């Protein structure tokens, strides 16, 4: 899909503040409400905007603990990635799965109600995942910035 300057401007402002009311977003991007809605529609149809879902605040739902678990897999098993990811999808406390090129193969974002719950999830559901060679944990203290903004 070919993007022009207006598409980029609309996207830049939308990504910088996705919760802005549409009229204000149109103002910031310097387009009319009709143009804004047409451009956003085209960006969705063209697959540039993939999804616009609600953000869920897990802490507000009582999940106080968030841990980033970084795995190195035993790649002597040809299906190590597929098996591991399929099993990780079955764990309800896993909220994100990412694969990497680097020292880390896979990262799981795991949430838990408290440390006791985390301990239980970790022992019963995480350590039992297939083909783990190495595993290390980063416990989230605070999120300082979390934006989808791109320097367009």
């Amino acid at each position: 899909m070919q993007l022009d300057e207006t598409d980029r401007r609309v996207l830049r402002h939308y990504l910088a503040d996705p919760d802005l009311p549409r009229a204000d977003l149109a103002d910031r991007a310097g387009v009319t409400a009709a143009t804004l809605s047409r451009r956003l529609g085209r960006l969705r149809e063209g697959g540039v905007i993939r999804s616009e879902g609600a953000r869920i605040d897990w802490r507000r739902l009582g999940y106080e603990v968030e841990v980033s678990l970084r795995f190195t897999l035993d790649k002597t098993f040809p299906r190590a990635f597929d098996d591991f990811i399929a099993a990780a999808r079955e764990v309800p406390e896993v909220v994100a799965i990412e694969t990497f090129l680097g020292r880390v193969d896979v990262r799981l974002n795991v949430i838990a109600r408290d440390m006791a719950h985390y301990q239980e999830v970790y022992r019963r559901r995480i350590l039992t995942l297939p083909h783990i060679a190495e595993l290390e944990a980063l416990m989230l203290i605070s999120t300082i910035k979390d934006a989808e903004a791109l320097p367009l």
Partner: protein
Amino acid sequence: MIDLDDTDRALLRALALDADVSAGELGRRFGLSQPAAWRRVRRLEEAGILAGRRVEVDRTALGFGVTVFLGVKLATRGRVSLEDFERAVQAIPEVQVVQHVLGLFDYRLRVVARDIADFERVLRRRIMTLPGVGNVEANVLLTEERRPGPLG
């Protein structure tokens, strides 16, 4: 913290996929009247559980072919250097996410770049020059998948 029933959880699952589903549509899907669905959504918003929208874009289509996660260890400790680091790192446009973590690293950063050469520029000119930055580990993101989490 508010109590959720199965209908609330179903609403959260639906809204996490598409923040623009109308109350009428949610009502039809989950056997509620339009006003009842609207009231439930409103309650979830007021409790802060629905915390705005998350827009996902095809970064490659927008010219950002590379996403890298950096683990950053600070070289010097202390309150002042943490604040200086956080202030400076948030201002870098290519840095989308900054998390303070406990473990092997002090911070996790998500960095977008046009290509590997552009990433090297960001790393050398912007990241390595941050106040207090010490050891840095980079892993290039290959795939990412958001999971519904414990809403089932």
